[in-house]
């Protein structure tokens, strides 16, 4: 019998706000030391009251627009109670009764994935276990950082669809400035079951909690598929509805220890937070502030003359496309800028193992300008770029200090050419005896002496002239 997977995702994404959801502590920009970014409110001291971060609400509405949701203009915050040391109030403020966005959808190729709802909630803190002393420490830096949870309908039929959806979600959220989606800032709970192809009934469901790596998500889904099918066909085990976790070392899922089978979170509306009413005017304002989506951007880039494939890469990542937009806005030609970003910048990122493009656009613009104006060679340009990536150097100062100016006067080049010829008797003799290739080694020495400065064509012609004189 053939089986199909039925998968639904709950995806938690950190919002790009300057402060936490209910207090003025710094938001997503992660602090370095434990409990650096904590106040009486987000550490659960008595006496503190939550005050909603308006920006978080706006970002959640933007996410709703992006995922074609209906925006609930009357939305509330509710309390979800459970005891855990990383939850300082022993309740999490979330949205249970009136989530901010409902009934959306995302297109993944031919398939439409339904979005059940998006709700805003606060993150919990972190527990750090010290095996040596058998002690646990709590770090509240992450406590109350705003999240949205995007709940999909069980519409996925393969791990590939899941991965495509998550990639698309990530780039769209980055594009709209909703979330930085930094490493680990996007976490998924994967609900998965298996049923005979064509069946309309749902099988027994496993929930794999708290996954953040795409490859692990894919592996976990594939593992679960096999486990479920084996259980159904070969009765290897009795499937039960349960929560599991992925063990990346053992490459398999394990049931999580869960004492309470059905936790009662005792949801009720938070009396400290008045219902939020998003009137038409505010809604229109948020809508107007939506940036272009990745698809829209890619389209613009193609209209600017960028090849479709390149346009797609540029628009796939917010940092790349921001760089492109900024440098083009500084007067550089789109095609040149695209080539510099896709070839040189991405080359540097690969070399330095960087995951995001973070150099200043003005510096890249200046390098391109110098190269286009013939002030420096493209090779020198690459050299400056590399220095910008490594040490964030000042472009003009670096060119000056390293004699990168391509317009150095020919008498200096000629002097160098003559000196190098004088120092390489053997090569010169070889050349004169008909070994034309010997000129290449002399040329190399000259280039080395000139540290890559000077127009290679000019140097080569001067060298030929001198050798044949």
């Amino acid at each position, binding site marked *: 019998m053939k089986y199909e997977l039925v998968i639904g995702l709950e995806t938690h994404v950190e919002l790009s706000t300057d402060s936490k959801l209910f207090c003025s502590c710094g938001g997503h920009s992660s602090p370095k030391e434990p409990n650096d970014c904590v106040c009486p409110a987000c550490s659960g001291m*008595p006496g503190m009251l939550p005050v909603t971060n308006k920006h978080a609400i706006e970002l959640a509405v933007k996410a709703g627009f992006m995922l074609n949701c209906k925006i609930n203009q009357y939305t509330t915050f509710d309390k979800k109670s459970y005891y855990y040391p990383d939850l300082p109030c022993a309740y999490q403020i979330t949205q249970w009764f009136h989530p901010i966005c409902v009934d959306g959808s995302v297109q993944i190729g031919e398939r439409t994935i339904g979005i059940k709802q998006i709700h805003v909630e606060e993150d919990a803190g972190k527990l750090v276990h010290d095996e040596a002393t058998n002690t646990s420490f709590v770090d509240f830096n992450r406590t109350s950082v705003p999240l949205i949870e995007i709940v999909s309908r069980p519409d996925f039929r393969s791990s590939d669809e899941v991965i495509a959806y998550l990639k698309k979600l990530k780039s769209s959220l980055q594009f709209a400035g909703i979330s930085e989606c930094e490493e680990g800032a996007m976490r998924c709970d994967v609900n998965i079951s298996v049923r005979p192809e064509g069946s309309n009934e749902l099988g027994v469901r496993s929930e794999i909690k708290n996954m953040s790596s795409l490859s692990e998500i894919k592996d976990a889904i594939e593992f679960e598929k096999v486990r479920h099918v084996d259980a159904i066909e070969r009765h290897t085990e009795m499937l039960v509805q349960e929560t599991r976790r992925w063990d990346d070392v053992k490459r398999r899922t394990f049931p999580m220890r869960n004492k309470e089978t059905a936790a009662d979170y005792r949801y009720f509306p938070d009396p400290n937070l008045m219902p939020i009413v998003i009137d038409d005017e505010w809604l229109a304002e948020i809508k107007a502030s939506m940036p272009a989506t990745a698809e829209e951007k890619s389209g613009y880039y193609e209209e600017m003359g960028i090849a479709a494939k390149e346009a797609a890469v540029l628009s796939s990542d917010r940092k790349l496309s921001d760089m492109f937009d900024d440098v083009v806005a500084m007067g550089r030609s789109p095609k040149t800028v695209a080539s510099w970003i896709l070839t040189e910048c991405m080359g540097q990122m690969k070399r330095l193992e960087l995951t995001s493009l973070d150099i200043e656009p003005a510096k890249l613009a200046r390098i391109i300008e110098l190269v286009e104006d013939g002030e420096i060679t493209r090779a020198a340009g690459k050299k400056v770029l590399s220095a910008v990536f490594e040490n964030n150097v000042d472009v003009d100062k670096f060119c000056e200090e390293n004699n990168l100016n391509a317009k150095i006067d020919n008498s200096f080049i000629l002097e160098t050419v003559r000196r190098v010829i004088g120092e390489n008797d053997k090569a010169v003799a070889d050349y004169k005896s008909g070994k034309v290739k010997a000129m290449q080694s002399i040329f190399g020495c000259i280039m080395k002496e000139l540290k890559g400065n000077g127009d290679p064509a000019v140097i080569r012609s001067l060298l030929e002239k001198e050798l044949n004189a």
Partner: protein
Amino acid sequence: MIYINEINAAGKIAVDDTILVKDVPATAGSKMLENFKPLFSAEAVERLEKAGYAVAGKTNVGEFGLDLMGETSYFAPETENGSLVGAAASLVASGKVKAALNVDLNGAPRRAAAVSCVDFIKPTYGTVSRYGIIACACSGEQIGVTAKNADDAKEILSVIAGHDSKDGTSLPAEKYEYSTEENVAEMKICIAKELYDAASAEVKAKIDGFAESLKKLGAKVEEVSLGMAEQAKTAWQILMSAETTNNLSRFDGVKYGYRTPEYKNIDELYVKSRSESMGFLAKATIIYGSDVLAKAKYEKCYDKSLRIRRIVCDKAREILADYDAILAPACSQVSYKPYDTADAFEKVYEESLFTAIPSITGMPAMVTKGVQLIADSYKESVLLSIAKSVEV
């Protein structure tokens, strides 16, 4: 710890131990918070200090303010001549402080004012910031003022009331103008029949006497059936207990407060820390509150209580459209003897019949001369003026 016996500061303000004053221990009457020192002061305290008043010290309260008037305090239940008294009300009555700030969460400061024969005003919900209260019932608890007379109550209330951006339920007005000079002669006042009937003969006599005084001043006094007193009492009990359960859950022995000396794992740390540090009434309230919030009961209990709250508000507003104020007992008796701890939950529940309507509706209430007056939202001046008119 600075407690009642150490205070002798006429002209200063006493502050209930459920209200935070920076660096001064705030125990809320519980062993759980025996050594808890807050990092900041309540907004109301800040405003008083900014206006030149000094905090005389912290006054004892019943555990988390849940009881009749302080008898469940882990530290020092107050009695005078064998009867229960509220620490703040007793201090104000003796003239040792000018006034006191109290949290009215389930009527304790109103009852305390009634038995000590001082004034207490609970203003409209949202007019005084709740920032800095050791919270229990967020949807109804409110800081109020205990004072010797209406003018003092008005003076202090004027200082502490006004919008505070740190409290999401704070109403927008920056300042409130209160008066004690409204014309009582033109007022119509109704006696709440159900509450009157439920009180003792001595309390009834107080209400009758108060009504006579009002009539002498020219006011009209009539009796009216509220038609929702029992419902308000039960609904408030449900809302209050549920919110209290939730708010007290942060006291888990992990971050601050009492932690049991021995535990094997986190569950034991929770259970033992909480069990060993909380008293009977707090525990009973938590159990009751957890129960009404359970998934299976939510619709029938909490959600229904929210709907009853709306009905009670409508009904009260309807009555207060015809009358300037409702006159009612603040409690069933003129004095209370210490009682068996195991009876605390029922006892407070029974007494809350008299105090629940202002708590659940957020309407202002004032206790003066041992009786309670209730007015529509923002009508504190009506209450203050009536209180002032019968002072002489």
